[in-house]
């Protein structure tokens, strides 16, 4: 991994709570208390310029909420997001390439819009030339600019979203599940394109996905989330070679592996608890094979003395994780 000491994004103690109480009248009549959902609950990470940091984790762990906090679509309830770049040059790519493209606009106009926002005085001819160039960059043809989004396949639409994002001359791209709606052969086209563009334009990606094999292919650093928190963050190679957190280990053990299928696996038990009433202490403790008393009362933090802030887990502090999990994982 190439470590470069210039952070483009610093996220510190980030929190986002949502009020999910029943309507006021019901609350009064049924004497129910106000309820708060902690979607993002104290998250720290740094992204270096030109690198890709990936957020992975199961549904509802807070990945998209972080994306919205970083891009400013949500305001934080606590903590901070510091972006050391040009805010106007931060763009976002969404999971659903159809919903995010205006169906009544021709593709050329869709792609031109961020450019016109960024530089309103650009002459039309220059805009048109730039749109043609962007269409070619993402593997479409200039004549496609005359068509409407519905005339394209899912993969082509995602290329259009990428072309639109590039039109804003981004230095930083937030990509929320950019290929999750696509077939694997189309996904490969989009991922290859994203990697090529990153190299050519020195782009930085915050890349969100629930697919560990995709994340392994794309990211320099991976942050594993569970119930609104980062439980482990490591350079990609280290995470796969030496996963530290019991949840990461179970996850890596659970994902189907085409090259070495585990046909008689014993899956991880239990389910992700509700973020409205998360378990006390370490929120993973009800599913954790290594949990001990302390885990139920105290919340583990990522600490400098424990694997250099890479993991939040008490068992990793005592070294129990290194020995204990191998035996318990098969139970």
């Amino acid at each position, binding site marked *: 991994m190439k470590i470069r000491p210039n952070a483009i994004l610093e996220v510190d103690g980030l929190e986002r709570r949502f009020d999910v109480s029943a309507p006021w009248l019901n609350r009064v009549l049924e004497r129910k208390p106000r309820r708060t959902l902690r979607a993002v609950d104290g998250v720290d990470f740094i992204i270096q310029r030109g690198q890709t940091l990936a957020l992975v984790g199961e549904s509802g762990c807070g990945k998209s909420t972080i994306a919205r906090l970083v891009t400013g679509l949500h305001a934080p309830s606590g903590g901070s997001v510091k972006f050391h770049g040009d805010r106007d040059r931060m763009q976002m790519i969404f999971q659903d390439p159809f919903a995010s493209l205006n169906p009544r606009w021709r593709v050329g106009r869709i792609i031109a819009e961020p450019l016109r926002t960024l530089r309103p005085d650009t002459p039309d001819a220059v805009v048109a030339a730039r749109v043609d160039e962007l269409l070619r960059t993402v593997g479409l043809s200039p004549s496609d600019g005359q068509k409407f989004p519905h005339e394209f396949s899912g993969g082509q639409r995602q290329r259009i979203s990428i072309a639109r994002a590039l039109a804003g001359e981004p230095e930083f791209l937030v990509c929320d599940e950019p290929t999750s709606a696509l077939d694997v052969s189309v996904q*490969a086209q989009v991922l290859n394109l994203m990697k090529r563009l990153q190299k050519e334009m020195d782009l930085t990606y915050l890349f969100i996905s*629930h697919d560990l094999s995709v994340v392994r292919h794309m990211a320099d650093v991976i942050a594993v989330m569970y119930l609104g928190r980062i439980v482990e963050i490591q350079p990609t190679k280290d995470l796969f070679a030496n996963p530290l957190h019991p949840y990461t280990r179970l996850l890596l053990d659970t994902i189907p592996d085409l090259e070495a299928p585990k046909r008689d696996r014993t899956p991880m038990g239990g*389910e992700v608890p509700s973020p409205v009433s998360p378990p006390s202490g370490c929120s993973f403790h009800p599913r954790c094979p290594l949990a001990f008393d302390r885990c139920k009362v105290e919340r583990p933090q990522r600490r400098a003395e424990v694997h250099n802030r890479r993991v939040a887990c008490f068992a990793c502090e005592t070294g129990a994780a290194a020995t204990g999990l191998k035996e318990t994982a098969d139970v």
Partner: protein
Amino acid sequence: MSDIVLDVRNLRVEFPTRKGVLTAVDDISLTIRRGEILGMVGESGAGKSMTGMAILGLLEPPGRIAAGSIHLSGDRIDNLSDREMQQVRGRRIGAIFQDPLTSLNPLFRVGDQLVETIRLHTDLTKAQARERAKDLMREVGIPAVEERIDNYPHQFSGGMRQRIVIALALCAEPELIVADEPTTALDVSIQAQITALLKRLCRERGTAVMLVTHDMGVIAETADRVAVMYAGRLAEVGAVEDVVRRPRHPYTAGLMGSIPSLRSDVEELQMIPGAMPRLDAIPSGCAFNPRCAHAGPKCRRDIPRVEGTQAAACWLATEGAVA
């Protein structure tokens, strides 16, 4: 009698439209034995669900079976009336879909839905059926059954709902289960639980399972045999290890190569150029020929077929030449 539970021969499904007749499933033949899991894979629009729906007798009109036959343990089922087919579906074929809420009625307690289904297919009394429902819920891994049996579907998580649907599908001890993307909407940890459950039930009860999914990883871990579909036709069938490790069809090989690996590093993923054709523009000859690096004149002229239980529909694979 042989242990072949499902025998599909030369199945064709058509959709008459204003612009002409579209063929969504074309000349599909496959068999599933007792206790066997057949995986159906392929990209979006390949015709996997249409094949499953045709077997279940649930094609939405104007969609219809235009040719071929479907036999269930020797009995022909593709020409039954709607009412007869409804009986077969309840008793002999179970269905599991991606969204558990399509199979559950949101207005009824899950216990009552199970009891009703059980009583429809057996002579059990209400009390006996309720006990049987509890057993089934335990069997599919619902914790605290005594408390949960009177809950409504919305009170369960997605994974728990899918377990209830599996319990429903099992009520009548069917010979065949058609499961269409049963884990696609679920998280990986829950997905692993559900596929492990399906595998165990299939092994213990000898149920034949058709598992439709676009997820090769799930297939590799779950299925005994695989059928790969492309543009409504079978591209390849075979034992799961063969198809995954030594694909014979260029499309299957491309599909495998485009999946990022969990073990090795590549700078670029393998790409199949282009996209699957739309139904109204299926190329002549081998439907894959515009995207295939090996395509020759024969590929553009003649349709290759899957022959047997271990084969690819590819002229290069079967005849070694495409001239």
